[in-house]
């Protein structure tokens, strides 16, 4: 622990005073300008989506391009829904996501506890092996899993998508293990002295203290499950059971030339996640920081 002569804030203020030149403001202005251009570039596809979704067919193919459709053709959305069972797909997707999140949070927290808080022979080797599965591309296990699930008759059900979630996921168990290791051992010792079991420690100490980490796991696994395309594509065969992702791709195949309906359907698929993002922004960034800065 070294002794500082002047506090960081005073040094910072002095430095700022000396260097707030006109060049500083020009530099700042340039950064804002670049950000503004990039923001427009990134937002433009979204605007394109909405403007096409609200145009009539002749307006879509008009030359020169109509940028702001008038009047706003909201009927495109209701027309799209009559051919794109949005609410059905939404319900299916929510069901799958809910069970997946449940399984992910429960299984990975227990696994992480075992890896972080209990010493047992071979623990580190097992941990490394589990981490190794992160390197495995999904395509390697795709086919054998499919064959296995086909043999036990789980094809065209949601089970192949939900059940594996209850058996752990290397990424989330790694994240939770790191977090659990940061909780002081004394708290667990105190419970052991009072005669509590490992599960008591887990349930009464670790879980309440890990609410933010568990929330991050829940959020990320929800998003992964929601956006999952290959899983439902491979396992679900009946149209009424499709998720939003697969349903939209089918809609594309059937009504690909109806651009206004297609954009409307696409917008409908975007909306739930965007809404979720605005409610959970802080949790998102927190979660990425967990995985990013704990390297």
């Amino acid at each position, binding site marked *: 622990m070294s002794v500082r002569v002047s506090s*960081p804030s005073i*040094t*910072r203020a002095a*430095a700022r005073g000396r*260097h707030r030149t006109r060049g500083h403001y020009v*530099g*700042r202005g340039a*950064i804002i300008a670049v*950000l503004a251009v*990039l*923001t427009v570039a*990134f937002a*433009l*596809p979204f605007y*394109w*989506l909405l403007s096409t979704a609200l145009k009539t067919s002749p307006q*879509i*193919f008009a030359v020169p*391009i109509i940028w702001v459709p008038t009047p706003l053709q909201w009927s495109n959305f209701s027309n799209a829904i009559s051919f794109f069972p949005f609410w059905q797909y939404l319900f299916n997707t929510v069901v799958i996501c809910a069970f997946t999140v449940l399984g992910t949070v429960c299984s990975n927290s227990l696994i992480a506890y075992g890896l972080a808080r209990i010493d047992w022979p071979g623990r580190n080797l097992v941990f490394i092996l589990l981490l190794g599965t992160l*390197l*495995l*591309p*999904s*395509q*390697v*296990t*795709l*086919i*054998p899993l*499919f*064959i296995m699930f086909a043999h036990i008759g789980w094809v065209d059900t949601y089970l192949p998508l939900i059940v594996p979630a209850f058996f752990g996921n290397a990424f989330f168990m790694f994240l939770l293990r790191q977090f659990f290791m940061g909780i002081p051992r004394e708290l667990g010792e105190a419970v052991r002295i009072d005669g509590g079991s490992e599960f008591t420690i887990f349930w009464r100490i670790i879980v309440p203290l890990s609410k933010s980490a568990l929330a991050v796991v829940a959020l990320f696994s929800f*998003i992964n499950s*929601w*956006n999952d*395309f*290959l899983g439902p594509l*491979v396992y679900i065969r009946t149209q009424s059971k499709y998720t*939003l*992702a*697969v349903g*939209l*791709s089918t809609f*594309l195949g059937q009504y690909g030339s109806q*651009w206004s309906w*297609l*954009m409307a359907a*696409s*917008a409908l*698929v*975007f909306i739930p*996640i965007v809404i979720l*993002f605005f409610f959970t*922004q802080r949790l*998102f*960034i927190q979660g*990425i*920081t967990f995985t*990013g*800065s704990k*390297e």
Partner: protein
Amino acid sequence: MKASERKELTDFRTIFFIPSIVPLVASAVLWIWVFNPQYGLINTLLSYIGISGPGWLDDPVWSKPALIIMGLWSVGGWMVIFLAGLQNVPVEQYEAAQLDGASSWQRLVHITLPFMSPYFLFNAINGLILSFQFFLQPFVMTQGGPAESTTMYAVYLYQNAFQYYRMGYASAMGWILFVVIAIFTFILFKTSARRVYYGGS
């Protein structure tokens, strides 16, 4: 700069980040329309500066660049990792450098980049592993592309398994993919060892 003015830039960050978390299928559908050769967004904008845009997804030469451009839309996910890294760079280093008379460029190259190097490596490895598994966009947007120009490895694997029912061949493809990814990851690690700086924090 990005780290110290977090509050004002939160709104900017949102628009960059959202495309990386929304359902990729919906993005794919949108970008099919964006790349439409006659009426799409990109060719319309190009026509304003007098360029006659190419056929994008319908053109075997331009289909892969189109997918690359679409991929750039999702950089927000990578950006957030870099943002987390920027916030971990010790501020004292900048102050010390400034007192010693370092210019902005020197501060960038000698302080920011070294402290950011682990994050560059993390993103590079993740990006490498993920791009070998590139499947959804080529599958949904072009089904393997005009003249197989977008038949990526993962797409071909899927076709072999679930369209041609050559499951054994597809499984072998999966293993080869694993080995290739492992080799590239190993090479990336080995070549980066000298250039990555793991700071005290």
